[in-house]
């Protein structure tokens, strides 16, 4: 796959600015928040928006921020939240994700039934996705 050299992120294209991306991601999130779980629309929308971002991210159409060539020594601290989350997710999953010992997604499901919270979640997901694409 052809690799494009990293472009400095401080030379944004007209559409690659917060004044464009923030409203765009907000509108996409408000739309996504209206589709209930397990619906065909929700599947198409999540796969479609995610697929579009994967395509943008792999096709080198967006300038990327500089990448660190080495990680600083304190990177090991990131293992702490990852391990704590991983231990609880693995243990709740292996015990069947019961109501009395639920996985993270089982805890989140009732919250995501509300369309506003669902839209906020969508915004967090899409914003983080956009951040990955820019890296």
């Amino acid at each position, binding site marked *: 796959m052809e690799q494009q050299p990293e472009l400095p992120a401080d030379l944004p294209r007209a559409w690659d600015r917060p004044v464009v991306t923030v409203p765009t991601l907000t509108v996409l999130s408000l739309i996504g928040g209206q589709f209930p779980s397990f619906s065909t629309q929700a599947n198409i929308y999540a*796969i479609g928006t995610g697929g579009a971002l994967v395509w943008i991210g*792999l096709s080198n159409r967006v300038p990327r921020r500089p990448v660190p060539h080495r990680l600083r020594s304190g990177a090991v601290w990131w293992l702490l939240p990852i391990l704590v989350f991983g231990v609880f997710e693995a243990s709740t999953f292996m015990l069947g994700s019961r109501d009395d010992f639920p996985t993270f997604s089982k805890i989140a499901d009732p919250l995501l039934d509300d369309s506003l919270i669902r839209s906020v979640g969508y915004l967090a997901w899409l914003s983080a996705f956009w951040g990955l694409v820019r890296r």
Partner: protein
Amino acid sequence: MRYVAIGGFTVALLLFVAVEWAARREGSRIPTFGDVCAYVMRYEVGPVPVGRIALFGFWWWVGWHFFAR
């Protein structure tokens, strides 16, 4: 037991916020989470950007898992 699980996930999320906060301090030796992700995404096997594909794929699945299924 339910509160143990909720408490565990809450602690994990608070630790995530705390480490990110520590990483953003002046002169910190801890990289931000974005820098860690960017470093992982640099990994390539030949011409294939394996790290980039893996992180995009994982995050795509997370969105589908929470918002579609």
